[in-house]
């Protein structure tokens, strides 16, 4: 075999023509042969490489890993797929290879050598990372846009208790100026100030939690009912003010699931905001229903409303980026496409229930994460 590699010119020509790198090693993990692409990468010719375990400029940790992989091939006689391995180029720059190493058997069926085919996927990985980063940025921007649209309502929710606090403290000051102190009233006002402050803190806490960039969060086992409740804290004021009835249905025990709670909350808020907009315009019963269930480790969350529903001609487009039926400035058109992206990154799917006359969105996702 070794001789054949050296003698079969056609064979060598073919391998040398490849852009991928080919490396043949013996049972001691020493280089038997390498194609031109590999030699070029290591900046060495075949004579210099032959007999070496690794190039002198490589790192001991990496060399050790290659040797371990080679040993596995010889021990198991099977192909080994290494999706990402780091290799040091002749100029000292580290590159990422996707390498597949396979055994070469001798006439008796014993592993005689190993052959590795490597492709430099560094640029591909960089591109993927930059796409991922842009996607994360888009998710975050869309969330900020949602918060911006909700800012007016949030301000009202904070300013109302603030008004009460300001008035109560003013009243305490007034009472303190009087000859006979109404201590009962002072106590009552002070207690109410404390209570009202907690109310504001809760709103700010929710905002702070929600506005954080959760794209790098690892998935945490979270209570679904708590997550729904936290998300609703952003909508309650609008639900009340617009006379919208909210129904929450859960037919079984409490559901826990692995997720980025910030991101899932973003999806729920998007869907709820759409439903609130949809039912706000109608005269008949305004109702939004959130239903959660667990079936064979699949979590299902449905959000439906009594609004006019989505026209059949628009159904295919609603998940497209920048598609919106809202007025200019009222929506980014990114809500549903980003929501679907978030659910898919959780290994699930976000769909529109086409059988429902009014709008009904379904989230189905695994209870246990693969991340």
């Amino acid at each position, binding site marked *: 075999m070794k001789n054949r590699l050296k003698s079969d010119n056609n064979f060598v020509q073919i391998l040398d023509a490849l852009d991928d790198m080919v490396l043949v090693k013996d049972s001691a993990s020493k280089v038997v042969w390498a194609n031109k692409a590999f030699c070029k990468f290591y900046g060495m010719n075949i004579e210099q490489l032959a007999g070496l375990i690794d190039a002198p400029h490589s790192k001991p940790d990496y060399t050790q890993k290659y040797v371990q992989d080679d040993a596995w091939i010889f021990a198991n006689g099977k192909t080994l797929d290494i999706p990402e391995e780091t290799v040091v180029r002749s100029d000292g720059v580290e590159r990422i290879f996707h390498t597949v190493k396979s055994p070469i058997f001798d006439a008796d069926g014993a592993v005689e050598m190993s052959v590795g085919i490597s492709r430099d996927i560094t640029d591909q990985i960089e591109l993927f990372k930059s796409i991922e980063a842009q996607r994360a940025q888009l998710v975050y921007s869309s969330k900020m846009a949602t918060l911006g649209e909700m800012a007016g309502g949030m301000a009202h929710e904070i300013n*109302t208790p603030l008004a009460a606090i300001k008035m109560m403290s003013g*009243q305490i000051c007034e009472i303190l100026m009087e000859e006979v102190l109404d201590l009962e009233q002072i106590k009552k006002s002070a207690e*109410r100030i404390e209570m009202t402050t907690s109310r504001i803190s809760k709103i700010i806490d929710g905002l702070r939690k929600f506005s954080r960039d959760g794209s790098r969060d690892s998935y945490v086992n979270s209570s679904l009912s708590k997550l729904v409740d936290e998300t609703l804290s952003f909508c309650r*004021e609008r639900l009340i003010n617009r006379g919208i009835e909210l129904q929450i249905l859960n037919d079984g025990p409490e559901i826990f699931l692995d997720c980025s709670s910030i991101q899932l909350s973003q999806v729920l808020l998007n869907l709820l905001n759409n439903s609130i907009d949809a039912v706000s315009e109608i005269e008949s019963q305004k109702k939004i229903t959130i239903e959660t269930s667990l079936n064979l480790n699949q979590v299902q969350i449905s959000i439906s409303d009594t609004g006019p529903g989505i026209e059949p001609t628009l159904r295919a487009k609603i998940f497209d980026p920048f598609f919106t039926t809202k007025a200019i400035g009222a929506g980014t058109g990114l809500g549903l496409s980003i929501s679907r992206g978030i659910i898919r990154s959780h290994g699930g799917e976000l769909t529109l229930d086409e059988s429902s006359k009014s709008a009904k969105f379904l989230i189905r996702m695994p209870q246990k994460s693969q991340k």
Partner: protein
Amino acid sequence: MSERRSILIVDDDDILRETIAYGFKRHDYKVFVACNGQEALQIFKEEEIEVILSDVQMPNGNGFDLLKAVREILSKQTVFILMTGYTNLPVQAALDAGADKVIDKPFDQKQLIQDIEIVSNLVRL
């Protein structure tokens, strides 16, 4: 102030409504309270109300609707002050609809009473 003024305070927030009510009682106002526009309109029809201090956003009848209804029923003699916690309330639209003043939450009680006195005197002139 020679006579007791009557005021109707309309807000769905219990604590704020009661706090404002207490503040006006301390200043010798005859105080009525309602937690939404519908309730307020009912009281307005039954009682003699000189000043209405109403929140804008409330379930079951918001401040704008209440303002329009009040202006339809009666003369412009009732002082109508809208309270808002919003940053983007169309103030001009509120004034055009007949509000005498729009005040932002949070507000100072003394300032509020002063405002009411000024507006009331202007309206009575």
